[in-house]
């Protein structure tokens, strides 16, 4: 009952990964007791479970996820929001307005119009219904400033780091507020554009090198060096 890969080997869809007494992890599938890769990614085995980190994937909604989306359409009683997923999300007017919603009085586009960015939480989603969003919690709602960057959604956990260590370090060293949409959209808001750019450069580096060892050390160093540079003049 062998495995057919080396640690962190790059595999492609259809490659045989293991046979027999193993469990299929994410981005793998089983056919006649054999485990195959479903996507392009790096494969690893952890206690009999074959895990694969996809290098290319799209965001699939999950209830409770915080996402950042763009209002795509103002509808009759709510908004359609593009959350960079196969499914568009819905935000109901009643969720945003604190009072009862009356279509004849309330001009929805005055509240949110096409192109507006929002931070929202997914409150419901299943195979037959598009995801529903809410903005009715602290920290959620319309975004008015800052910069947006997109990363492959599977890289978000690496930006967060172990127990949030990576993201807190970036926030601290760059003086930026950072909101991570689990759909791969990241909002960076800082006091200066330079601060924001530094945070973005660092996050891009993490995305690029997310599967390399010693990444935390390199990021720490990068942040320190750049801070020094900024303070020098």
């Amino acid at each position, binding site marked *: 009952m062998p495995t057919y890969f080396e640690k*962190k080997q*790059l595999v*492609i*869809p*259809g*490659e*045989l990964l293991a046979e027999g007494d193993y469990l299929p992890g994410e*981005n793998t*599938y089983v*056919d006649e007791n054999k485990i*195959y890769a*479903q*996507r*392009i990614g*790096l494969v690893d085995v952890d206690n009999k479970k074959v895990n694969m980190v*996809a*290098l*290319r*994937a*799209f965001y*699939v909604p999950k209830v409770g996820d915080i996402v950042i989306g763009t209002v795509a359409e103002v509808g009759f009683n709510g908004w359609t929001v593009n959350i960079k997923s*196969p*499914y*568009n999300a819905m935000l109901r007017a009643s969720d945003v307005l604190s009072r009862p919603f009356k279509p004849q009085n309330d001009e929805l586009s005055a509240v949110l119009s096409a192109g507006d960015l929002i931070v929202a939480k997914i409150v419901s989603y299943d*195979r*037959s219904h598009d995801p529903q969003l809410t903005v009715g919690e602290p920290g959620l709602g319309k975004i008015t400033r800052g910069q947006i960057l997109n990363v492959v959604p599977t890289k978000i956990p690496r930006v967060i780091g172990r127990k949030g260590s990576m993201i807190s370090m970036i926030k601290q060293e760059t003086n930026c507020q950072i909101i991570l949409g689990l759909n791969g959209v990241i909002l960076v808001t800082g006091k200066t554009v330079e601060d924001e750019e530094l945070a973005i450069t660092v996050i891009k580096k993490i995305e*690029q*090198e997310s*599967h*390399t*060892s*010693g990444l935390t050390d*390199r990021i720490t160093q990068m942040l320190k060096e750049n801070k020094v540079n900024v303070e020098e003049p």
Partner: protein
Amino acid sequence: MNDKSSKLIDKKGIRLDGRKADELRPLKLQVGVLSNADGSAYIEHGKNKILAAAFGPREMHPKHLALADRMVLRCRYHMAPFSVQERKSPAPSRREVELSKVIRESLEPALFLELYPRTGVDVFIEVLQADGGTRCASITAAALAIADAGVPMRDLVVACAAGKVDNTIVLDLHDEEDKLGDADVPVAYMPSLDAVTLLQMDGILTPDEFQRAVDMAMNGCKKIYEMQKEALKTKYMVVKDTEEKEEDEEVEE
């Protein structure tokens, strides 16, 4: 096919373009060639030059085409007006409609259609230059584009034809062999699962010749599969390279 006795293979068994009976034309494959598509690939197979792009999974337009219990794969195979000797009208021909269908049906077995109900994946194939065997080259490229889009797949799909020319079963017919030969058998194949996803034939073959042609085409597929794998890994290898380089640096430090 033509019953003129033409000389497509010489006494030594060498074909007009210098190949042996079971030899492929030169192939070049590239992944991630179009920045606007979710996934893309380019293939040069002999003188065929073909681009494939994949979009999705995404919301279906028009919406009524969405299916409640599965994802929909749509394929459009299209030949550029300048891709052939005599200008081809850009309007889709009946041949293109049929090929779009069989290409789609050759790719569907590789997808987990039930995973993302109500969505669609669109695959657009543009033949920029045609040289015999465009449907096969299109499938090879389209499978790469879908994988590059991050759509989960059971296996890559790879395609190649075999046929009968001057009484010989040969691999991977070029334009002239296709037109003057006795039969053409395009095959698409999922190598890891040993499954044939496209099979067509025109011309006349005995049952035994037909089997030999299918076997030869599958062997051709297996060879192209190695190049397909390589092309896909090359695009994503950049990540691996960074890793190895960085690790080396760390050792030096």
